[in-house]
């Protein structure tokens, strides 16, 4: 029995793997923030239907949603150096491709991939804000920017929170593909351990447990955030008399 499944190893692996947790979180959080910024910009272009940009972002969203993340990682990993080489060849410049940190490719692919999906729910969330709220802002003399910052974004956020949580969870799991860009994070570290002791199943089980716990924590956090944002559903004692 012991030969088939070494249950203890599943847990003793975990401390070794956790050394790479900071890398996983670093990739996930940086890509996540970049994804939100790009997603918001794309959403605004889509809402405003900006003349030149609209077809470009439509193509970007369509292409990104229509191709697998793994393929996109390879495209950035091999594509960016190739473009640099091409520029060097054409213009006689001397950009070095080997000095680009490997993590950069993972960050670029993950954030661009995720932003294509985020832009859609960000757009939906912004458009879900009741027109009456905007008219109220106008009627009290707020400028467009004040309206966006004070009313539209806070209200859209409440609608977007569940999707924002989902997208962070997907991002965390997406980082497991970063090994394709030669970045060693939790999954890659697990693979290395497995290749040393040939306990492949145990290694992946350890990896799975770590991801699962991270996502459990994230979903809890987002539930708390959602409750906090829905301030109108708590707090004051509701009285029924109508004065």
């Amino acid at each position: 029995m012991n030969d088939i499944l070494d249950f203890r190893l599943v847990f003793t692996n975990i401390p070794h793997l956790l050394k790479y947790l900071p890398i996983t979180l670093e990739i996930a959080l940086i890509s996540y923030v970049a994804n939100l910024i790009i997603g918001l910009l794309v959403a605004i272009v889509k809402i405003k239907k900006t003349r030149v940009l609209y077809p470009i972002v439509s193509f970007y969203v369509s292409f990104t949603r229509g191709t697998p993340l793994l393929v996109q990682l390879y495209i950035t990993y091999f594509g960016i150096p190739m473009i640099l080489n091409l520029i060097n060849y054409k213009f006689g410049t001397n950009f070095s491709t080997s000095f680009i940190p490997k993590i950069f490719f993972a960050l670029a692919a993950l954030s661009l991939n995720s932003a294509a999906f985020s832009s859609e729910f960000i757009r939906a969330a912004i458009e879900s804000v009741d027109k009456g709220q905007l008219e109220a802002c106008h009627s009290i003399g707020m400028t467009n920017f004040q309206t966006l910052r004070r009313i539209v974004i806070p209200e859209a956020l409440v609608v977007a929170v569940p999707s924002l949580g989902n997208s962070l969870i997907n991002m965390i799991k997406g980082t497991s593909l970063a090994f394709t860009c030669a970045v060693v994070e939790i999954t890659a570290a697990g693979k290395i351990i497995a290749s040393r002791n040939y306990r492949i199943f145990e290694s992946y089980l350890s990896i799975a447990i770590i991801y699962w716990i991270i996502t459990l924590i994230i979903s809890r956090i987002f539930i708390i955030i959602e409750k906090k944002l829905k301030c109108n559903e708590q707090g004051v004692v509701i009285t029924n008399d109508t004065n």
Partner: protein
Amino acid sequence: MIQIKNLTKKFKKLLVLDGIDLTIEDNSVIGIIGPSGSGKSTLLRCINYLEIPDSGHITFDTNDFDIQKATRENIRYMTTHTGMVFQSFNLFKYKTALENITEGLIVVQKKEKSEAEKIAKHYLEKVGLIDRANHYPNQLSGGQQQRVAIARALALNPDVILFDEPTSALDPEMIQEVLKVIKEVAKAGKTMVIVSHEMNFIYDICDKVIFLEDGKILASGTPREVMIESENERVQQFVSKVNLIDQYNI
């Protein structure tokens, strides 16, 4: 005083306002009546630029401009010197009654938070809702929400307050509490323009009434002149459907 001359507004090909002339004297209360779709609300919304009118001329105290040549400052003057009360209240969902009122004072008028809260509380007191200051809109009844909305408009101290069917979304009991508040505001000498189907109320509190149909003013004058003595057949027909009570008490 606001003087509007030859105001027109089209929605695509549909002419909604067809050369409206309207003078809003200081401290007067003007009622706009007429059938649905006659352009009443659009007229109000053009005054505070929620809708952009197509042509005409507006003189609002020192702000005198031709609509087709309106500058950003002209429009800004209109939005900041008028207040609006909506049919569907439009209170900010995630802000308390108090925050709804302080929002404009702090963000637009750049007042200190403590001063804004003092003003907001004063107006909440006026509309009888000081004990609901920390309630969110969804914790208030429709009538209470509308009273908060009126307090929000009043707190910014605009020269004119525009009421766009303020009681159409309320049940009869709530209508009374809201009309009472509006009447008090009118008595205090605030300049107001009211679009409403509450004929008795209009008759009671307005200094001047205009009857609008198909974007044109068919009759205008004192409530008695328009709602009782008008010679215009269409106006007579419309008003005859209501029983005007001479002494309307709320």
